[in-house]
């Protein structure tokens, strides 16, 4: 059945029976096995009860064995529980040293249960848990496909030509912080992306669609085949998961022994192959090596063979467990390679053959985890140490044949000052390379402590985490005299020279369990302190510690008549540190034309520019902080389960564009005194009259300017499998409202030319600008499992009841304006009539703020998988086999919609 989190163990902590008896004691030993397979079960909980009171407790070791020494003679009720298995109870009379074997029945087989959807977490924070079975049935190509199973999600065709960014509790317009704010944790190690500086300035090709700079994880790069279980935390993650402002994705990969399995998948645009095995290296299963490789080749458009995406991943994970002095030691080392390659060329038949781009990502990661669990009588329960080193090699390369439409000059001046520009050749091949080599080092330590405090069961988690992130790449490499775009003003930058960052965190979390009669109250209160080390003293964040407080309360009602009801709620602040690209943006260059003298004779031409260069860093940047709260109800009745979450989130300092203005002085030479016919060389600047001019413009950098508000209801109902039809019904969906806005004063410069000049003023606007988006959707999933035939068949009706959006009201009036000398004046009503100033008023019409609603539409998806013989399993899926898109009227106009053509795929799984 539903996979319980590992933390279930934390609930079964003994109250610490300290009453010491003088009498004789015996040892109670045993082994816990899977009833079907007779495999040993490690980490199973064994508890000895006297009445309702726990007297003794322990955990099985890697070999499924447990030993409880010093047991007083008594008749005990032994309760053996294990995640995913039915709990076993047995009366045992201890009068001597005894040994017992317990057979546990898997909950899934017990209920004849196959869960092909996500299940809601049973803990306080809202989370979707997706296990192997669900993933198998979904037939994903990458992690992106799993998002269909999260409330609010629906199936989407793979978009392999661009970075796939995660969206949790999002609809409509979104921001890059949405995905940057989601942390991915693979086997307890964060997938750090903060030293990513890959983007190509000045490029007009779609190479930048592959950029994830300051956008978080590209889900395309994550294959799903070695994943055992995923937990997508939509609500408030534990303080153990930091540096997030939206949610967390916790990926747990396979570590157990498993047969050799291979998968071949083909769909409309891609082919996937994967093979993996969990090998037992020694007789008693102490060492298990999991190894797998995965290869994906996707054509972005099947009709176009020159654009494709390839992914190759390989992973080896060695897991070992042993018992040492009653302590369970668990040690895991892993090494992973991920290669992700975007490749696009121009059509072979096109006249321009040079145009091409590549975006390569290679990552090699070594991680080690060492965990020790202590016996339950110890106040220290667990120590966990994690380290990882990850080196990535990223390369974007674009080749572009540039043909100018008119002569264009560029400045190659690297420092501030006046210089003559050079005219670019009319035809040239430009090459630009972005070479990034992010290095990430992580070291973390965590401990779990337990002390009894009177009636309370109490547990404390504490941890520290240190990261080092640095980009060692050569950076933007290109010939400044052959820019990829003639309007580009970027100069090359070496990433090596960009300082590294060291995020540091400490956290402590207190978990209290308070039984009130037969009710169960659990309170989790945690604090996480985050700081960014290694910053220059100019930064506001330097030396500052940012605390995040997170609280969860869960109230489990006593079970009655088959009803299980739990209420929970949480409140928490979660913060995301800025990335290297945000803290160390590229230098800003502006080249202003002082003389543009294009004589018919090339020898007499002269273009003179004034170059300005400045640091575009916003030293005031602080972590983006989201305040979340949610209340949940979880109602179970005889295998049926409904869970509903209402949430609100608010962030006032999200990352967005912070504007500022600059008035830059330059000389405008008057060429009218030059007699072109008598020139023998380019005109001398010293002989020309000039006027002092100012270029007033608005620039932007990253600031804490974005406001985000989220509100919504997420729900999931899953029925028990209806025996007669062998069918289970799952209904899940969400109503989500997002508002992304900014009311931070904003400078805007007009883009027009008036009377041969740019506007002499820039405006300052204080109105709120933003959009509100809403969506309400529900997926109805019917899955039928015919065990005898080995057939699973599902139909999913994915209904979007409506989506809508509206622009937030804004009067468009500037509050003040700034002239070229930097002087600020209030904007008065009569200024709206001024020749120049009238262009600073943004005139909105009422319809602009009207809500635009798209009504109901529905897609029907089919999936089936069938076991054939001993080794083979065949699956296929068709998304949108049927689409219902009724016509509707928008502002008096009939809108006809047609569903996209179906998307289909099939796969073969071989298990030996």
């Amino acid at each position, binding site marked *: 059945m539903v996979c319980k989190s590992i933390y279930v163990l934390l609930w079964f902590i003994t109250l610490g029976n300290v009453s010491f008896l003088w009498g004789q004691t015996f040892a109670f030993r045993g082994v816990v096995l899977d009833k079907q397979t007779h495999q040993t079960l490690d980490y199973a909980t064994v508890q000895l009860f006297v009445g309702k009171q726990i007297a003794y407790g322990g955990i099985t070791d890697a070999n499924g064995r447990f030993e409880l020494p010093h047991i007083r003679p008594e008749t005990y009720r032994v309760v053996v529980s294990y995640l995913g298995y039915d709990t076993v109870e047995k009366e045992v009379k201890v009068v001597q040293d005894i040994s017992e074997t317990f057979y546990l029945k898997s909950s899934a087989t017990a209920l004849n249960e196959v869960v092909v959807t996500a299940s809601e977490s049973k803990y306080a924070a809202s989370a979707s848990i997706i296990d192997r079975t669900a993933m198998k049935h979904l037939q994903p190509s990458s992690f992106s496909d799993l998002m269909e199973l999260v409330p609010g999600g629906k199936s989407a065709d793979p978009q392999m030509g661009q970075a796939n960014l995660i969206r949790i509790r999002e609809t409509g317009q979104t921001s890059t912080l949405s995905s940057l704010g989601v942390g991915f944790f693979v086997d307890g190690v964060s997938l750090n992306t903060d030293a990513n500086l890959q983007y190509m300035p000045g490029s007009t090709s779609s190479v930048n669609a592959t950029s994830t700079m300051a956008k978080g994880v590209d889900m395309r790069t994550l294959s799903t085949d070695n994943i055992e279980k995923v937990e997508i935390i939509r609500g408030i993650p534990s303080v153990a998961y930091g540096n997030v402002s939206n949610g967390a994705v916790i990926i747990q990969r396979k570590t157990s022994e498993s047969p050799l399995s291979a998968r071949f998948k083909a769909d409309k645009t891609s082919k996937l192959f994967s093979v993996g095995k969990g090998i037992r290296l020694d007789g008693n299963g102490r060492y298990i090596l999991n190894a797998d490789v995965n290869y994906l080749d996707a054509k972005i458009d099947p009709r176009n063979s020159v654009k494709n995406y390839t992914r190759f991943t390989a992973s080896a994970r060695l897991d070992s467990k042993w018992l040492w002095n009653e302590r369970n030691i668990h040690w895991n080392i892993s090494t992973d390679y991920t290669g992700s390659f975007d490749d696009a060329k121009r059509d072979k038949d096109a*006249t*321009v053959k040079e145009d091409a781009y590549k975006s390569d990502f290679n990552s090699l990661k070594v991680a080690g985890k060492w965990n020790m669990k202590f016996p339950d009588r110890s106040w220290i329960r667990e120590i966990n140490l994690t380290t990882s080193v990850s080196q990535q090699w990223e390369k974007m390369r674009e080749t572009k*044949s540039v*043909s*100018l*439409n*008119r*002569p*264009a*000059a*560029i*400045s190659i001046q690297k420092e501030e000052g006046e210089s003559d*520009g050079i005219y670019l050749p*009319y*035809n040239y091949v430009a090459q630009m390379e972005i070479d990034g080599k992010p290095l990430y080092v992580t070291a973390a330590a965590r401990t779990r402590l337990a002390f009894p405090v009177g009636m309370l069961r109490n547990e404390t988690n504490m941890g520290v985490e240190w990261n080092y992130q640095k980009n060692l790449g050569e950076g933007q490499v290109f010939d400044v005299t052959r820019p990829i775009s*003639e*309007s580009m003003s970027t100069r090359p930058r070496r990433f090596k020279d960009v300082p590294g960052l060291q995020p540091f965190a400490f956290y402590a979390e207190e978990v209290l369990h308070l039984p009130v009669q037969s009710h169960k109250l659990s309170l989790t209160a945690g604090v996480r302190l985050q700081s960014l080390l290694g910053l220059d003293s100019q930064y506001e964040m330097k030396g500052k510690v940012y605390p995040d407080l997170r609280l969860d309360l869960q109230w489990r009602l006593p079970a009655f008549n088959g009803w299980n009801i739990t209420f929970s709620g949480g409140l928490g602040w979660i913060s995301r540190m800025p990335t290297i690209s945000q803290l160390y943006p590229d230098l800003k260059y502006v*080249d202003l*034309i002082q003389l*543009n*003298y*294009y*004589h*018919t004779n*090339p020898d007499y031409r002269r*273009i003179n*520019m004034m170059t300005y260069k400045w640091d575009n860093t916003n030293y005031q940047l602080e972590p983006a902080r989201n305040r979340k709260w949610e209340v949940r109800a979880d109602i179970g009745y005889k295998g049926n389960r409904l869970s509903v979450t209402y949430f609100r989130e608010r962030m006032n300092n999200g990352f967005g564009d912070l504007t500022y203005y600059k008035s830059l002085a330059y000389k*405008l030479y008057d*060429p*009218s005194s*030059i007699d*072109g016919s008598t020139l023998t060389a380019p005109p001398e600047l010293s002989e020309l009259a000039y006027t002092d001019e100012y270029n007033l413009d608005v620039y932007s950098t990253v600031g804490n300017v974005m406001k985000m508000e989220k509100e919504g209801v997420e729900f999931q109902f899953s029925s028990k499998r209806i025996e007669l039809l062998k069918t289970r019904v799952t209904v899940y969906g969400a109503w989500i409202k997002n508002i992304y806005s900014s009311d931070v004063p904003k400078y805007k410069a007009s*883009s*027009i*030319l*008036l*009377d*041969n*000049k*740019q506007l002499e003023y820039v405006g300052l606007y204080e109105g709120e600008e933003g959009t509100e988006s809403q969506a309400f959707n529900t997926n109805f999933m019917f899955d039928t499992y015919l065990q005898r035939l080995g057939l699973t068949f599902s139909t999913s009706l994915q209904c979007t009841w409506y989506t809508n959006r509206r622009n937030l009201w804004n009067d*468009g009036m500037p509050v003040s304006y700034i002239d070229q000398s930097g002087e600020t004046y209030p904007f008065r009503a009569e200024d709206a*009539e*001024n*020749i120049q100033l*009238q*262009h600073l*008023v*943004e*005139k*909105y*019409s009422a*319809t*602009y703020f*009207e809500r*635009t609603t798209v009504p109901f539409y529905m897609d029907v998806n089919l999936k089936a998988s069938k076991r054939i013989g001993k080794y083979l399993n065949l699956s296929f899926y068709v998304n949108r086999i049927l689409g219902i898109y009724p016509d509707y009227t*928008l*502002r*008096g*106009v009939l*809108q006809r919609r047609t569903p996209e053509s179906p998307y289909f795929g099939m796969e073969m799984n071989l298990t030996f």
Partner: protein
Amino acid sequence: MKKNQLALAVLFAAALGFSACSDDEGVSMSDVSISATVNTTIEGLQITSGTYTFENVNTSAKTDVSYPTSLIQLADGLYNVTFIGKGTYSQNGTSVEVNVQGVQQNVTVSGGSCKLDLTAHVVNTGDADFVIAEIFLPGTYNEAGKQYNGDQYVRIYNNSDTVLYADGLVFMESQFTTTQKYQSVDPDIMNEAIAVGSVVVVPGNGTDYPVQPGESFIICDNAINHKEANPNSIDLSNANFEWYIESKQDVDNPAVPNMDIYYCYTKTIWILNKQGNRAYAIGRLPEGMTKEQYIADYTYDYTYVLQSGTVSKPQSKYKFPNEWVIDAVNIGATNEWQWNVTATELDMGHTYIGVNNTVAENIGKCVMRKVAYTDNDREVLQDTNNSTVDFTPAATPSLFAE
């Protein structure tokens, strides 16, 4: 070169029954039969009505004959014959009426016979003034086989018989495109003014830039020798005016005067719409209207609703009143054209560079106004405010023809 010409062959046949002369009057009258054939470059033009006026050169006696006429009685002598009439042609199922006229001098009527060879042409609407003679938008292929569009130009022609001054002549590009019709525009000003994205004006104090009758001048973005960049292109260094925006992506040829940019939607470079899906117009500010007053008072703020129902962001551009417009032409690929973006009074029709608006089809082609007739070597261009018939689509630009 094609001509709009209406050739009327009028045959005077001597009628019988004049053999018995009326003895002493000395002037013989003949029955003259007239038949007319129409030959025109406006496809399908039919003369529907009109009047021939035969004016006797000696007596100044006038005889009006209405069209169509087959037989009239005329005295022998020397005549000047004029024809003024109307013709129609069909455009998209609707009938369009135009005025036609023609003249032939010194026609001899003698003994009941004469030889009349009268060429009629379509009459231009309004007073003769500047007209847009040619618009070259798509540019050329360069050596690398890529599009090069720095060589766009517009030729403006003095279609009158007097010297006109280019000073203060306004050239503009419409803001709306002919290939995307809006469901609605609020406010809709199309019947009063053209919504414009750029307004550039020929400099001068009023008499600095005379243009002789039948002469034209060229305005362009870059008045340079484009052959330097692209051998397939043209030399525009002798163009009359260029527009220059102070930016490193533009160049300024000091030898060619810059146009006065009253307003332009962009502050980097202004390229004419190279797909050819906007309208272009020329006009003059009325007496007393200054640049300052124009840019202060003639902004146009609007929003539009797309066919999909989506509402646009607020737009702020300029407008140019229809009364100030001298000539306008709507351009739009035949397969994509959806509407005209100027009032019908300015242009009833539209012309095109290519039918399908592909680069391969458009490249190196222009739209060119047809010659209506030639008046003593001076070509008079056809201007009936209907660019469908007034322009030759997909023509070879004149500067390439040289």
